[in-house]
């Protein structure tokens, strides 16, 4: 059972208790609580407005100004975010990426990124990051990633007597066309070599 606190100070030599707070002490405690709440409220208002500005897709000048104001802090603290999965429009193509690896002796090898539709359920859980990576890799806006990816593929496939000298990244895609009167039939596949990388000897180390 929890010991009960006495409400009045003891004068008879019994167990000592804390004296009641004096008026200035109470005032100070109340002031501290108010100040603490005010500081937390400031933190809350800043973050609610900041997160709202950041993630709601509005392009009014005020929101854009707010976004650029909070940008350094949000990037630093890891509060940046976007919730645009399948939007504004879901992808209308099936696609995947393969690499053609060219060796010094002239032979080639096709290396494929893991494709979710060809993996078991368990493997898909473990290899999900490849799906996301390829989704980004194949975009032209992410061309800065291509040299690193080509080097990685070169190292991965450099296990024979002849060294890798070139890596080509190939994008394959097939349009998804909705038909109201017909069951869905997948379209034909197109291919495009979107990057070629000349492998240097130091890339293979």
């Amino acid at each position, binding site marked *: 059972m*929890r010991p009960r606190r006495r409400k009045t100070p003891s004068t008879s030599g019994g167990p000592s208790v804390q004296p009641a707070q004096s008026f200035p002490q109470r005032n100070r405690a109340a002031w501290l609580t108010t100040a603490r709440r005010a500081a937390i409220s400031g933190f*809350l208002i800043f973050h609610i407005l900041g997160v709202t500005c950041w993630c709601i897709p509005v392009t009014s000048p005020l929101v854009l100004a707010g976004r650029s104001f909070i940008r*350094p802090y949000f990037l630093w603290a890891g509060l940046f975010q976007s*919730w645009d999965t399948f939007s504004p429009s879901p*992808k209308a193509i*099936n696609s995947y990426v393969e690499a053609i690896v060219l060796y010094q002796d002239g032979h080639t090898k096709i290396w494929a990124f893991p494709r*979710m539709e060809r993996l078991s359920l368990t493997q898909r*859980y473990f290899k999900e990051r490849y799906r996301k990576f390829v989704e980004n890799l194949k975009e032209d806006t992410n061309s800065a*990633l291509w040299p690193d990816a080509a080097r990685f593929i070169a190292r991965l496939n450099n296990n024979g007597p002849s060294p890798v000298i070139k890596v080509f990244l190939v994008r394959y895609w097939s349009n998804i066309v909705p038909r109201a009167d017909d069951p869905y039939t997948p379209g034909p596949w197109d291919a495009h070599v979107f990057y070629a990388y000349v492998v240097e000897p130091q890339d293979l180390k």
Partner: protein
Amino acid sequence: MRLSSIVRAWDSFFFEPTSPVPIALFRIAYGGLVIATLLLLWPDWLTWYGPHAWVSLSTMHQVEPGTRLNIFAVIPQNDNWVEGLFWVFVGSAVSLTIGLLTRLNNLIVFLCLTSIQQRNLFITHGGDTFLRLAGFFLIFAPAGAAVSVDRLIRIRRGKEDAAVVRPRSPWAQRMIQIQLALLYFAAFCSKAEGAPWVQGTALFYVYHLDELRRFPVPSWFLQPTVLKLGTWAALALEFSLGVLIWIKDFRYYLLALGVLFHLFLEYSLNIPLFEWDVLAAYILFVDAADIERAWNWIHHPRIAGGKLLLTKPFPST
């Protein structure tokens, strides 16, 4: 409406002490999901984050410039350091889940989580982002005040009463709730800008993406009319979970619909962990008194044991 009534409503919403049990349960779910994320990544820790990863640290800095919380930027770039960081991360995530040195481990988990995402932003999905954001606000929450080893230690040392969990200020919990509601509302706004969502064809494309297909869905679901209705229903639900969730009368119905929605996506689409990352935060919208009732209903014979960590009814959230 007077300014004083707005201030009172603000104070009541963010500062009126409430049971820490929902945030403690969220901490457990959150920790479990972080551990699951790490285990799924485990075979590829070095593949994605090592010195010879798919994306190098320098490329990442070039693509995403600016000063960022990123431990990878300060540790030596070799396999041992990277693996060491991951093991620290795992240890902290386990400690956070059981509620041992909760706040410290919360901070470490957030730093590590932010770091691995900053190290390679090209492999993160929405679930990872939500864990990162929730982790930030969780640092400020009384996440170890209930259902935790920290609390057991405090009880053993006589610093806390076993029968009562002291209500705490819920402002950090409210921020995670607001973050979740904004997630849905922002998703709704982004979708509402797209013609396929307005015309009702969006789900047709989603359910014909080979890479996302998981278990087979019934053929009637793929009929154009059903997909159209499904597209609009998804939009309506995202709007409701972002806006109407704050109206108490609707809350449990919307949460139930949200659970069904995410479970269906988990069954039909291959987006590992995203649904669970989001569903975990639903706990924060459940009244502590209802959690108590559910706990007692499940564990009635062991109710005395239950009291050790939970307690008598709390002020409602």
